[in-house]
């Protein structure tokens, strides 16, 4: 399976051209979504400064070249790949030609680098007046912290997620990933780009979009901020509980076994109202303890939540998590297995919907990719090709998009502009 520079047909973004000067997570994921819905995306990289994700695993067994990283590949399906060294004058001129071809320019490089390369919006509109130029700096293009370093690992603490997530007696450790990199920031960016495209179709005007990653990450935490600005309360970690639900949390189920080792298994259970409570009681076989009148109202359950949690844990402990979920769901109680990656890939529901997509990559082999994050009934979105090899489409892009002759391409190779 391979792609070329020919526009797609009949997709929401057919004919839209994207110069993807981004790396790591927040930029590439957004550009991948544009490709999935029909845009022609040229991912620009350089061997002089590889995308860090190319050198971070996972890698297929026995392979560890920079073309086979599962981390990188999952965010770059459906793109053409061009290696361009912007620190050479010819590389810079080629970048300008690519931008003149583009409807959308996207970057999450630091403001310092973008200024040095001359890729600010004011410079890009000279190349392409109606361009939608999208910048995803960590802190923003102005302000006292403009040049601060950072990526996901420090973004989560700076933006409040670590302080607010987890159990109060533990340190603010975060949620185990560079969380804002994967949906919050690329997803917000996608919303902004699509709105700007709609506006451009109405008016012919492009614009500059700036998504400061700290601002985008803090925005969904607004209720905690307002609790502070309005009520003066400084919220902190509250574990798995919610004020308006009880019981609410993850309950340990019977251990499973994986590779000959016991594996802890959990089921999330959420009870918001009396009907769900009585559903839970019925699922448990209506034990005598549950009929205690103290537990007959939300207020009562909230007041005795520890006691109820202990009783439920006694019931879940002897059952597989899947059975707990199925029993509770059959009684109308929101419940779900705490699924690990194996569960996700083997999830019968996700399989029935065809969520994960398996693509044949020339070096990595057949591997799983996240499918489109939303489904459109008429134009469902397609991962048209696996992630590109580094520089895989150099010749194609030079010839068909940049209009270069064989001699010019050779010159670019010799000048290490194509690098």
């Amino acid at each position, binding site marked *: 399976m391979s792609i070329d520079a020919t526009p797609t047909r009949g997709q929401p973004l057919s004919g839209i051209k994207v110069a993807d000067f981004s790396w790591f997570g927040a930029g590439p994921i957004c550009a991948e979504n544009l490709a999935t819905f029909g845009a022609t995306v040229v991912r620009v990289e350089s061997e002089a400064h590889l995308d860090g994700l190319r050198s971070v695993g996972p890698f297929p067994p026995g392979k560890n070249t920079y073309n086979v990283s599962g981390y990188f590949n999952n965010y770059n399906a459906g793109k053409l790949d061009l290696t361009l060294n912007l620190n050479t004058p010819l590389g810079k001129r080629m970048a300008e030609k690519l931008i003149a071809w583009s409807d959308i320019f996207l970057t999450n490089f630091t403001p310092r680098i973008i200024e040095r390369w001359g890729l600010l919006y004011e410079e890009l509109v000279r190349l392409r007046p109606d361009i939608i130029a999208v910048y995803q700096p960590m802190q923003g293009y102005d302000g*006292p912290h403009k040049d601060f370093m950072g990526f996901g690992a420090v973004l989560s603490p700076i933006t409040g997620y670590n302080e607010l997530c987890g159990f109060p007696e533990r340190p603010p450790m975060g949620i185990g990933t560079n969380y804002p990199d994967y949906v919050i920031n690329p997803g917000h960016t996608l919303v902004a780009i699509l709105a700007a495209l709609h506006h451009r179709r109405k008016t012919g005007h492009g614009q500059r979009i700036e998504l400061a990653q700290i601002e985008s990450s803090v925005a969904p935490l607004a209720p905690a901020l307002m609790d*502070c600005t309005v009520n003066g309360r400084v919220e902190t970690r509250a574990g798995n509980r919610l004020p308006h639900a009880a019981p609410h949390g993850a309950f340990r189920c019977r251990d499973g076994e994986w590779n000959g080792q016991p594996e802890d298994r959990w089921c999330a259970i959420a009870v918001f109202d009396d009907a769900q409570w009585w559903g839970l009681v019925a699922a448990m076989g209506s034990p005598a303890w549950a009929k205690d009148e103290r537990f007959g109202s939300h207020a009562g359950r909230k007041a005795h939540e520890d006691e109820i949690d202990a009783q439920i844990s006694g019931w879940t402990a002897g059952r597989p998590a899947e059975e707990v979920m199925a029993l509770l769901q059959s009684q109308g109680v929101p419940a779900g297995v705490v699924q690990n*990656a194996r569960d996700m890939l083997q999830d019968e529901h996700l399989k029935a919907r065809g969520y994960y997509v398996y693509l044949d990559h020339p070096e990595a082999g057949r591997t799983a990719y996240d499918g489109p994050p939303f489904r459109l009934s008429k134009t469902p979105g397609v991962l048209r090709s696996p992630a590109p090899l580094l520089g895989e489409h150099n010749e194609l892009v030079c010839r068909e998009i940049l209009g270069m002759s064989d001699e010019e391409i050779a010159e670019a190779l010799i000048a290490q502009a194509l690098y």
Partner: protein
Amino acid sequence: MTTCALDDLRILDLAGDIGIYAAKLLADLGADVIRIEPPSGDPARRIGPFYHDDASPERSLSYFHLNTNKRGITLDLTSDDGRALFRRLVATADVVVETFEPGFLDGIGLGYDALTEIRPNLILTSITGFGQDGPHARYRWSDIVGVAMGGMMTLAGDKADPPNMPYGYQGYTGAGIQAAAGTLMAVLQRDNGGGGQHVDVSMQEALSINQETAMQTFDMTGAIRQRTGARGALPIDIAGIGVYDCTDGQVFAYLGTPGGAPWSAMLEWMTDAGKAEDLNDDPYREMIGQLNLRFLTGLAALAADPPKLQAALGTLGHIYDVFSRFCKSQSKWTLYEEGQRRRLMFGVVSTPADLVKNPQLQARAWLHDVHHDELGETLRYAGPPYRLSETPWAIHRRAPLPGEHNIDVYGDELGLSLPDVEALRARGVV
């Protein structure tokens, strides 16, 4: 007069918790979003925190945040009159956002097919826990069910605890963001002349990519990524990585990373401050010279030589203790700002109060003030996720009170007379 990117779109917002953020994102970019609440009360108004802790339906700060720029009407979709009114509204709408159990709207005669008969190019966005089809389509969901079934929760927390739920309804947030994007994707296809369509958002699928490398790790190697607690993947405490106490809170440090200054720059700072203790002597100084992420790989190789490994661990432990004492003597903002000036990666473990006073957010005037006439007060809101130069994000209107725009919408726009609206109100339809 600035323009708005989406000011030509009218959206009917029937969403529950899982979808309210999607409609907010579109409203804040200029769409005319009409939030439709049941006359019996909108459950979303029962979610805190509340203004001055007054848990009444008109005081939810969460609701204020999630419903900026929307107009609000009440309508009982379970009554024939209510459905008739809804059909008249649909005839004026571009998008309907809904979060009912799959099949519910079909069951009351308001499914995608029925709605597109009224409004051929309509976009229907459905946001649910598990999507519109498949064996779990009718499963009940809540935020924690989404983060559990979507693979996020298993990665969060300490092995000694239950898996952690991320704070702040991140399941709903992720589903909402993907739904807003999916809706706009459908709008662009309609712009192309491709008509309307049904947008199906599953919270479980919307969150899957948040697993970071876990899915690919299992696919490629058969290994299952686990929750790893405060130390992450590190086998021991390493000075300069992780959470440290300060005089006034905590910082997160990630020293020795590519692109930043080496650990020796940290030693220089501690020396300048007179708090390096004996770290300028060997064996500490020598080890600091090599202390980076790659160093840990070398440490693993020492496992074959237990005495040497013990010595190395002792040296590392002492550096960790001295570094921890240094952090403990500084404020978190000093470590963050002075550290960053020295290219040492520190970040404040921000509390909500820290976010409110963050100098960068302040300098960029990120927080937004919104006046509430009915409270006689101006409240400080979170700011925009993005800044669009031509069509800026803006809050033009606070969240609606229940039924606040019934007269505007039913009277002025649908042409009902005041007595008609009053009669509907008396029958509990609006």
